[in-house]
Every structure is written in structure tokens, then in C-alpha cells.
């Protein structure tokens, strides 16, 4: 679903992200970890072709589309419909003047997805939300509900790939567990490819198959999550693990 080779994102002379190799297949979860400013989120945006103002080179293929060379219209078609982005701050990512149901209906209409109210209700029920939430405004739901709604939206659109940018960092511990549980279940049941950016190694250990560790824009270590987290080869990875509470 995601195939990256020698991806470089530069702003002027500065390379802010360099990923030599990254593959995420259906049903897989890959986590990109590292401290703030390490290039994790930039990598995610590059996969959506949304690093405007940056010079991007390499090879990026997402859902069969060459992101770096595809026309803008083709990219708009896959954004949301095939590749969904779950953002860090869930409520801030929802337009405050639009009810969640309206937002979902518009997104579905935009991508030509035929979905009645029943289908919309099923999408939110799949992430353990009450369909009544579709009548609410973003300020009327909690952070966890908003984040699960974002995942429901991805499901309703039929997304095959979910890019999650720190999906739990703005949530409290119990809500984090709910969101992670939903992501894990959907990955197993629906074969979602999940690429998650996080600085939370504890979270990563519970969900990721493979891990990329980034520092200062470069990948310093990668491999199976169990191996990288249990026997880190790079000093920076060891630092991150030692920083765990």
C-alpha cells in the first residue's frame, strides 16, 4: 500500500526528512518514532503530497499512485478516499461550524461514495460511537470521540491506508487505550495499512509490527518492533527507551 524509496524533503538547503526505504502492506502497522523535529510528520505529509513549498525527491507510491508525479486532481482523489490522515488534535481538525454528520456526508459526497444514514451510523458504530454524535458540533464531543470520529470518517470513505499523526498524544490515558484498541481492531478486521507517527514508545510497542526511528530528519534505525524495542542497536533508540517512565 505504501512504498517509499529514498524520499528526501528539503526546505532550501536543509533536508528535514530522509527516508531510504519504507513499505507498509495491507493489515500492517508501521510506526515512525523520534523526538519533535525529527521529520516524522513531514514524512507523513510527503506521502499525501502536501509538503507545499518543499523540494521533494525520491519515489513515493501510495495505493498505486506515484505521489510525486501524479497530477493534483489524482492526488485529491486518493486523499481521504483511499488514504486518510488522522491528526494529532482531533477537535481542532473538525470545522467548528459544521455538525459531524454534515461533515461526513459532504466528505462522502465529494468522493462519490453512496452512503445513506444507515451506512454513516454503521461507520461510527464500528469505532464504538453512538450515531447520535453525528448531530453534534465538534465542541460538543470529547477529544477521544472526535478522534474516533476521524477514524470512522476514514472507514466510511473506504480508506485502505490510515496515516496517523500522534493520534493519541492529545488524549488522556483511558481515551488513548480506546483509540488504540479501535485502530488495532480495524487493522486486523479490515486489513487497514496503518502508518503511525508517535513519540510514545509504549504505544508503539502495543500496536506496531515494524518501527522506524528518526533523528534530525534521518532514519537511524529500523526493523521489527519487537527487536528494535527490545534490543536497540542505535544509541538514540536506547535513549528514547531509557526516557520511558
Amino acid at each position, binding site marked *: 500500500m505504501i512504498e517509499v524509496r529514498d524520499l528526501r524533503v528539503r526546505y532550501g538547503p536543509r533536508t528535514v526528512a530522509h527516508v531510504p526505504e519504507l513499505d507498509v502492506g495491507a493489515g500492517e502497522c508501521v510506526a515512525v518514532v523520534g523526538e519533535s523535529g525529527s521529520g516524522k510528520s513531514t514524512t507523513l505529509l510527503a506521502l499525501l503530497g502536501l*509538503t507545499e513549498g518543499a523540494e521533494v525527491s525520491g519515489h513515493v507510491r501510495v495505493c498505486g499512485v506515484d505521489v510525486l508525479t501524479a497530477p493534483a486532481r489524482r492526488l485529491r482523489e486518493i486523499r481521504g478516499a483511499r488514504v486518510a490522515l488522522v491528526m494529532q488534535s482531533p477537535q481542532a481538525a473538525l*470545522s*467548528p461550524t459544521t*455538525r459531524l454528520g454534515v461533515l461526513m456526508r459532504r466528505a462522502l459526497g465529494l468522493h462519490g461514495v453512496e452512503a445513506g444514514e444507515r451506512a454513516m451510523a454503521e461507520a461510527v458504530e464500528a469505532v464504538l460511537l453512538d450515531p447520535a454524535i453525528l448531530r453534534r458540533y465538534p465542541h460538543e464531543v470529547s477529544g477521544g470521540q472526535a478522534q474516533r470520529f476521524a477514524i470512522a470518517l476514514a472507514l466510511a470513505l473506504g480508506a485502505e491506508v490510515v496515516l496517523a499523526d500522534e493520534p493519541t*498524544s492529545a488524549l488522556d490515558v483511558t481515551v488513548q487505550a480506546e483509540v488504540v484498541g479501535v485502530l488495532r481492531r480495524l487493522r486486523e478486521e479490515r486489513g487497514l495499512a496503518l502508518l503511525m507517527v508517535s513519540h510514545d514508545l509504549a504505544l508503539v510497542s502495543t500496536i506496531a509490527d515494524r518501527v522506524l526511528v528518526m533523528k534530525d530528519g534521518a532514519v537511524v534505525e529500523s526493523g521489527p518492533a519487537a527487536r528494535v524495542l527490545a534490543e536497540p542497536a542505535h544509541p538514540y533508540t536506547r535513549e528514547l527507551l531509557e526516557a520511558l517512565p
Partner: protein
Amino acid sequence: MTALPVWRPVERLGRVDRLAVLGGVLITLVALSAVLAPWLAPYAENAPDPLHSLEPPGGAHWFGTDLAGRDVLTQVLYGGRTSLTIAVAVLAVSAVAGVTLGVVAGYAGGLVRDVIMRITDVFLAFPALLLSLALAVVLQPSVTTVIVAIAATWWPWYARLAASVAASVATRPYVDAARCLGVPAPLVVLRHVLPNSLTPVLVQVSLDAGGVILTAAALSYLGLGAQEPVAEWGLMVQQSQTYFTTNWWIVTWPGLAILVTAFAFNLLGEGLRAALDPRSGGARQERATKESTSAEAAATISTRVIR
């Protein structure tokens, strides 16, 4: 299963607070009295009666008479037609033009913003009255001239306001999220940037209604707009202000008409602001789920470069 979402503008309007309703009722009354002036007015419009000049309010003339002996109540009722027409036309033209250009400039940024804002600056650089005078040289003095002249000097303020708000809204995570959903730029502007930029503009429009009426009066006074014998509130105030200490009624009633109308627009604007912004309003806040967590106040995602 619970009934599913339906966008309900009626429900939103139903949440407008009581003061806003009062504003709406007042505006409706003023508008109705203007429209129905031929039937409501006790005397004919512009019917001078020198024998009854400067009569104080009484049984025959509830609002008194002016220097020419015209019934002030009649003049106020007919004057509402002109003043409201000017106010509504100027605000509608200015707001539509200003907000459209401003939102596009604010969202697009870069060269588009620079071009639109420089054009705006050119209009702002001209003193409003000077620009109006220049327009009056080209156009004949009339109510239409007043509308064109004021709108030409009014829209840049809305453009500036809308541009600054839209530029801020354009960097919000929900706008980025819309782009990530594949929403094309025109729809992002229409559905996300515009609705979330309108609140301050609406409030400004409501506050400007009285100002437009007074500006129209100033232009009429300079011979560029409504002229005698056309009844217009601002013109009535302007012409009779020197009589305020001796014959207060000539200036007070049209002045009160302006005051009440401006006040009503303010109330309505505040109500609209509350209705269009679902985050405001006590009742709705109370409905917010109790599951809300402290994490809601957590840092937002950096909006960096998603443009």
C-alpha cells in the same frame, strides 16, 4: 437507532437570543412603517403648510411640524424608505464585494493577496468624501449616487477585515484536514474558511448600519445625494440641527429613528453572531458531553506547510 444528522438552519435561527429577536422585530417594524408610509402617514408627503410652521407635537401633528409646516411624523415615515434603502444597499454591496475579495486574498496568500490588498489600499488611500465627490462629478446627485459613493469607500474595510480573519482561519487544523480529505480549494473556502470568517464581518455590518445612514446624510448635505424634497432621516437631522435648542422635535424624531434603527441592527448582528457560531451560547454549552477531557485543550497539530 437515533435519528441521523440533518442540517437545520431553522434550529440554528431558533437559538437566536431574545435581544436579537427584539432587534429583528424593531427592524421589521421600521421597515414595515417605511413600506406602509403612504397608508400610515397622517398627511401627504412633502406637503408644506406655512401657516402651521414649527408647531410642537400635539393632537394634529403628533411629532410636530418643521420649518415649512410639513408633518414631521409623515416625513420620518417616508424618510425611512430612503434611509433604509441606502443602508441595506450599501451594506449588501460592500459586504459581498469586500468579503469575497478578502476571503480569497486571505486564503490564497502570496501574489493573489498582494494584488487584492494593494487595490484595497488604493481605495482606502482616498478620503471617503473626496472619492464620493469625484464620483458625484461623474454621476448625477441622487440616492443611487449616494449608494455607489458610500459602497465604493466602505467595501475595502470589509475586505481588510475578512482577509485578516480568513488568513488566520486558513492555518487552522480543520482547513488542513479538509485538504487532506481531498477537498478542492474553492470548496475549502466556501465550506470552511468563509463560514468561520463571517462572524466579525457580520458584527461589523450590524455596527455600520447607523454609520451608513449618517454618512448618507453628510453626502446629501453636500448636495451629492438625496435632495429636498426627498425625505431622508440624515438629511432631516442635518437640515434642522440648528433648531435643536428652540424646536427640538424637528431633529429629535428623525434622530431617534436613526438611533433605534442602528440599535436594532446591532442587536440583530449580535444575535446572528451567536447563532452562526455554534460555540457560543449557554444552552448549547450545557449540552456538551460530560466526557470532555482536559486533553481537549492540548496542543494543536502544527499547521506548518500544509498549503
